[in-house]
């Protein structure tokens, strides 16, 4: 058992994989000398040298594209996008090029590329450095997207991403980098892509969470008058339909807890699929707990913006009691 911060777990996962496979290398802005803005590549330069751990210019399009080219040429690059928002200047290389390499070559090529980016709110970085943006990625044929919820899943999912033969994006909740978690760091403790996990069991409601909302949902459930299956989705594309459906068949109630805005949030995808699959078992309409449809605010307000454990508990209280969806906090305001 190790007790590591999430950024340490990521460094460890990368190091072990690089040790195992010479084709793996890491590049990004300040990942080498500085060991990553969020210290997610601690010790890697010292251990693997500047050829396999590379600082890049500020050229997201350039180095992401270079990673695509290296990936189809027999390497297995890991690219760090410091803040996932910066994909806005490079999205083409990921979704229009990398994701299609296998298809465009009739299966002759493939792009075993890992793109890691810090994502999400909670650190007070303001509206251009606090988003999750999985909506830019989910739905892209050929692309997979995973989201760890702490050190343990970061370790296992990072390994899975690196070992996958197709492009995988790891959206690392930046608010969790500094949080410690104890886990069994077996070098082969890979968490398979596409497989979620039920944390805690309960018959009243299924709560689906992702990334930092997993902890929110667990805290909410811990002191609640209801009992929930809390599902850590872990992969958002392709997501674990079976696991969620099975739980909803049992509980008859579905809640998603998302840190993103309501519109365009991943919860809509889950709700729309699960409603089809489990219509007759549903006791009530699903409920999505999200942030309001506004940019991520700075400072104190960021806490209000993100769904808190208290908020989740209160809303689920009403939901389970009345089998109706209570209005969101901002609907009361506006």
């Amino acid at each position: 058992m190790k007790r590591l911060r999430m950024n340490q777990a990521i460094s460890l996962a990368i190091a072990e994989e690089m040790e195992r496979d010479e084709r793996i290398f890491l590049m990004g802005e300040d990942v080498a000398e500085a060991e990553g803005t969020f210290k997610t590549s601690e010790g890697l330069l010292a251990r693997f040298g500047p050829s396999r751990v590379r600082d890049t210019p500020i050229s997201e399009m350039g180095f992401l594209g270079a990673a695509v080219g290296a990936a189809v040429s027999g390497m297995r690059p890991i690219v760090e996008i410091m803040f996932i928002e910066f994909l806005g200047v490079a999205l083409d290389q990921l979704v229009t090029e990398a994701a299609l390499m296998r298809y465009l070559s009739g299966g002759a090529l493939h792009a075993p590329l890992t793109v890691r980016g810090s994502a999400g709110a909670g650190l007070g970085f303001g509206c251009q450095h606090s988003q999750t943006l999985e909506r830019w990625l989910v739905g892209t044929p050929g692309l997979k997207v995973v989201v760890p919820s702490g050190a343990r899943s970061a370790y296992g999912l990072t390994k899975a991403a690196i070992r996958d033969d197709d492009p995988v994006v790891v959206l690392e909740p930046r608010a969790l980098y500094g949080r410690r978690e104890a886990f069994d760091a077996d070098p082969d403790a890979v968490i398979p892509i596409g497989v979620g996990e039920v944390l805690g069991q309960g018959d009243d409601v299924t709560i689906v969470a992702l990334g930092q909302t997993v902890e929110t949902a667990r805290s909410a459930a811990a002191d609640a008058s209801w009992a929930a299956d809390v599902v850590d989705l872990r992969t958002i594309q392709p997501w674990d339909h079976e696991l969620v459906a099975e739980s909803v068949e049992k509980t008859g109630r579905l809640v998603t807890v998302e840190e993103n805005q309501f519109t365009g949030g991943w919860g809509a995808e889950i709700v729309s699929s699960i409603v089809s699959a489990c219509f007759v078992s549903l006791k009530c309409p699903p409920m999505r707990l999200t942030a309001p449809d506004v940019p991520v605010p700075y400072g104190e307000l960021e806490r209000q913006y993100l769904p808190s454990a208290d908020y989740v508990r209160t809303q689920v209280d009403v939901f389970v009691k009345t089998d109706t969806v209570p209005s969101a906090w901002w609907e009361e305001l506006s």
Partner: protein
Amino acid sequence: MTVASETNEALRRRAALQESRLELFRRMVEIRLVEDRIIELFGEGLIPGSTHTCQGQEAVSVAVAAVLRPTDTVACTYRGHGMALALGVTREALLGEIFGRKIGCMGGLGGSMHLSDPTVGLLPTFAIVGAGVPIGVGAALAAQLQGTEDVSVSVFGDGATNIGGFHEGLNLAAVWSLPVVFLCENNLYGEYSPIARTTPVTDLAVRAASYQMRSEVVDGQDVDALIDAIAAAVARARDGGGPTLVEAKTYRYAGHSRSDKATYRPEGELERWLQRDPITLFKTKLVDEGVDGSALEAVWEECRLQLEQSIEAVLASPLAEPSDMLANVTAGRI
């Protein structure tokens, strides 16, 4: 723009800076003190998120403010406190923003990276590297289309010259002969990376040749040299002579951002630059010009006092409220 008295104060501060060299000196001192104090405040954990200060680069900001008309436009970066203060933004509007107060530039919803005041020509400062370059070009295009004589200045760092938006922006400005000045603050580092690690040329000004654009390299620690270079470029732009790339060789004394101790700098480098401190150099010059040295010394204490008063005023002013985050997303309310 929202508060009328605020507006007047920013314009008044701008006019003051343009009217006397003593005021120019004072503004540099103000910037230095504000930046030092911001670092302290962050250090005390009083402010969430991050911040990027510009100690050592004050001459560039005040030179721009000294040359431009308030109807001219500045597209600047997250390292924008100095530029904002120089252009006229009040200490209260800047610190208010950082402290999440309603009197902040954007009502306390944005934080350190997001300043703006259209009444003195400051566009929202850009937190995405390179984003402001084409946007500055667009402001110049508007001026050309409207037939005003306004000029636009895009300010960015050395690291930004490696991003696609720089290339596309400069090309567009050149081919349309737009009234824009590209001002590169070459402070030798992009985050923790020295320029040589990311950029195969030393004088970034050479890149203007790719667009058959004029360029100039200027001492970024010498206010007067800067004013001359920027004034010449601005005058040419106003007269329909098209864009110029001005490279100011400068240095940032602090780390890249709040958490950066700048341990990557070679020994003695900071000290060498401190010997050419822009405030000291300007003071010497003013004394040579006959200004009383002790008056200049007194400016420091005056500014310090004013700053503490501003901080008090800001801390006594109301915080942004949850309902504020629902405004200004689109024309209506969310």
